[in-house]
């Protein structure tokens, strides 16, 4: 599947860490982050646009993650809800690339 922009939703409880995650995602061409701190905000954002990737970040429990995954996959069965580990620069790009590879998603340059 080809897309021109990769929308990534990141949900976590620590706004300062989310700010860094947002900056790192947006530092990549054609990647665009939406960051939220509550499950309600995540569901609202998900209802407004398609996010192939949802990252679950610091402060979200595994139980909350399970509920989120269930709700979000009910809306879009193709969404990948994955935990982001490490809090920023070290693994984020790797995690995105692994999901894109797994899902067969290719980002093409806008014309």
């Amino acid at each position: 599947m080809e897309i021109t922009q990769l929308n990534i939703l990141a949900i976590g409880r620590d706004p300062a860490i989310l700010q860094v995650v947002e900056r790192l995602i947006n530092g990549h061409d054609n990647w665009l982050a939406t960051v939220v701190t509550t499950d309600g905000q995540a569901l609202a954002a998900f209802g407004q646009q398609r996010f192939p990737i949802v990252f679950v970040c610091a402060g979200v429990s595994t139980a909350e993650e399970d509920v989120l995954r269930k709700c979000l996959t009910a809306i879009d069965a193709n969404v990948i809800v994955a935990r982001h580990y490490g809090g920023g620069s070290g693994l984020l790009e790797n995690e995105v690339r692994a999901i894109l590879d797994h899902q067969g998603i290719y980002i093409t340059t806008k014309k």
Partner: protein
Amino acid sequence: MNTILHKAATRGHADHGWLESYQSFSFADYYNPERIQFGTLRVLNDDRVDGGKGFGSHPHDNMEIISIPLEGSLVHEDNMGNRRVVGKGEVQVMSTGSGVFHSEYNNSPGQPAKFLQIWVFPNRLNVTPRYDQVNRDPAMEHNQLQTIISPEPPEPPAGNPLPIFSTTEPAGNPLPMSSAPGTWIYQDAWFQIGHFDKAKAVTYQRHQPGNGIYLFVISGSFQIGDQLLNSRDGLGITASETITATAVDNDSEILIMEVPMQNKME
């Protein structure tokens, strides 16, 4: 026994001038789908930081981060109120849990600092962040392995702890055992380190079924079975309860990391 070999020359490499990093597993710009992790061992970076340079304040969360300086020292500062210098002969651990901001700089203005930075997935999420730093005892690492990392809680220092490793002469004669506890992380992982004279052998006994063992040669070379490991080579081993490594060169140093191959969240 199943093995996976990571020769030093096949690692990822990033040269940012002030920072040069060799990465045994995918990290930052280095992405190799065949080299993502070894069980819960996710990052093994072999870094050099120029004098006076370093990493400004940045966050981490939900990762056990172990730093082992090999040359020089780093000054660490975090939002938990810690400001510590960690140098050769010490081990630093951060359980980053719910989130921590920290900086780390070379503590010397003119000399490079070299260190291993290792990340292990935790078995508990969102714990209160924790910092620890311990000394290594060179005498406890000579021709034997010293434990530097073990699971929480640390093994009791008194009483009759079970021997967790043994050192043997090539002929099989036992040498003294060591049980220095080091520090701990939120994972069923054990790290041991030692430097060995030529022809000395050590047999590592796995602590927990299902765990894998990753050997990383810091200096010199070791023979493990029919595999010769040279400086900075790594060898992952699964489905084996014991591993014997024999030093091929004098003053050969090895780091042995036992980690769960599947993460069981508590």
